[in-house]
């Protein structure tokens, strides 16, 4: 437990100390929300546009932080030899991974808090009423996307290509699943692609909990799809994850 807290503390220090990570992972979704919130007006899904955008960008933030950010950080640490070096210390793999996941969750939770505060200040969005359901959704979403992030990191070969590969997955996913705004007007085949992606189900859950003020268990099917994605990713990660850089 002591080692876990020690590692968590330094995971946080390393994250915030890296300006690129802090800006790309933490600030970017917030900026996007403020920006889109001032262009979209009227109603989306029957609620004021900024509310719907807040929910959508909360979904994007989750994928951006837990999937993209985590995958890139892991690949860079693996390829630079940090992970290999840590393996020869008494720090256990389980403690390291637990601290890394907690650290990611902390970043995402702070981001969600910042989203609601900024929304309130600039776009008059309400704070969430189904708070318990929202917290649960955030934890489940972060866990599922973190699993996908670890699995993706295991499949990426080089640090140089990691950011390109990850964004090639993330940005189209965000467009197709409603994380950058509604997709009803999209062609049917684009929506069909979006329908198999996990981000769509996470955005659906956040919409239900924040916009419709429903409890999380009203979205059982969506939860099921998310968990299935998470479980598949865990299997891939368990078989493919490596601590050592690719031999030059």
């Amino acid at each position, binding site marked *: 437990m002591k080692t876990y807290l020690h590692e968590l503390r*330094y995971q946080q220090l*390393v994250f915030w100390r890296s300006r690129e990570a802090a800006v790309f992972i933490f600030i970017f979704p917030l900026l996007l929300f403020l920006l889109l919130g001032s262009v979209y007006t009227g109603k989306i899904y029957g609620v004021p546009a900024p509310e719907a955008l807040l929910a959508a960008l909360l979904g994007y933030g989750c994928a951006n932080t837990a999937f993209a950010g985590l995958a890139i950080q892991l690949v860079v640490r693996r390829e630079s*030899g*940090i992970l290999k*070096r840590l393996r*020869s*210390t008494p*720090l256990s793999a389980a403690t390291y991974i637990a601290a890394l996941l907690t650290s990611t969750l902390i970043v995402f939770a702070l981001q969600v808090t910042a989203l609601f505060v900024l929304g309130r200040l600039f776009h008059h969005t309400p704070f969430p009423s189904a708070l318990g359901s929202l917290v649960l959704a955030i934890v489940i979403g972060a866990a599922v996307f973190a699993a996908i992030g670890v699995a993706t990191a295991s499949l990426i070969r080089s640090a140089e290509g990691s950011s390109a590969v990850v964004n090639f997955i993330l940005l189209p996913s965000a467009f197709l699943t409603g994380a950058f705004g509604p997709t009803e007007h999209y062609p049917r085949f684009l929506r069909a692609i979006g329908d198999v992606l996990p981000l769509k189900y996470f955005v659906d859950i956040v919409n239900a909990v924040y916009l419709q003020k429903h409890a999380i268990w009203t979205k059982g099917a969506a939860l099921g799809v998310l968990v299935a994605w998470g479980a598949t990713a865990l299997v891939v990660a368990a078989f493919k994850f490596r601590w050592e850089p690719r031999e030059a």
Partner: protein
Amino acid sequence: MTAISVRGLRKAYGGLEAVRGIDFEIERGEVFGLLGPNGAGKTTTVEILEGYRKRDAGEVTVLGHDPERPGREFREQIGVVLQQSDLWPTLTVREAHRVFAGYYKQPRDVDEVIELVGLSDKQDARIKTLSGGQKRRLDLGVALIGDPELVFLDEPTTGFDPAARRAAWEMIRSLRSLGKTVLLTTHYLDEAEQLADRVAVLREGVIASIGTPRELTTADHEVEIRYHRNGEEVLLRTSEPTRVLHELTSEAMARGEELERLEVRRPSLEDVYLTLVSENAEE
């Protein structure tokens, strides 16, 4: 007491046999050098002993543990400097030492270790601003922070300028005076000669020769006698230098001649090493 015992160690990658049956023992407190050209199997051997790789065959004991099942206790007692690894570029030297200190039950004092590796005036510098030599000293510092019994140094001075190498050698000597066991790999002969109590020369996955640097240079090797006669160099190689030299000098004295520029030379470790690693053609 034996720190490391290796018997019949083998390891292949695909069809390539990197290590083809090697045996050696390292005593506690000893500085042992694994010397050999690139691709001789040094890093493979060390990484098996560190617990990174599984062996194909052989018996290996490191501080009483089988490194194939490296538990916490094993990792508490070893310090590792990898051939290549970076640490978090945005942390400072002191922070990196603190991170590692937190992993061990009884770490050494962070200031003391930073002082020992000569980074006191860089302790608040970000790692990304360090020179190559300073990064290597940082690697050594975090390897020593857990106060290990056994320190693995995989090519610790590759790419150093001469001054930085001298400084690194001093640090490695200080490990011996702390009573640590050190396993050092290097492809620099002078490094092995300067630092190691004993040296094993690896060639194509087997040990070509093993012993103290002195034993390696005396065993089965001829002494060279050189002198000049009529401006031409004469070179004699002999395993009986006393007799040959006696005859040579008696004859010269009988003729009333001086043996110009007379020199008796034992082969350096470099000569021995080059002989050993070039013997593969004879196989």
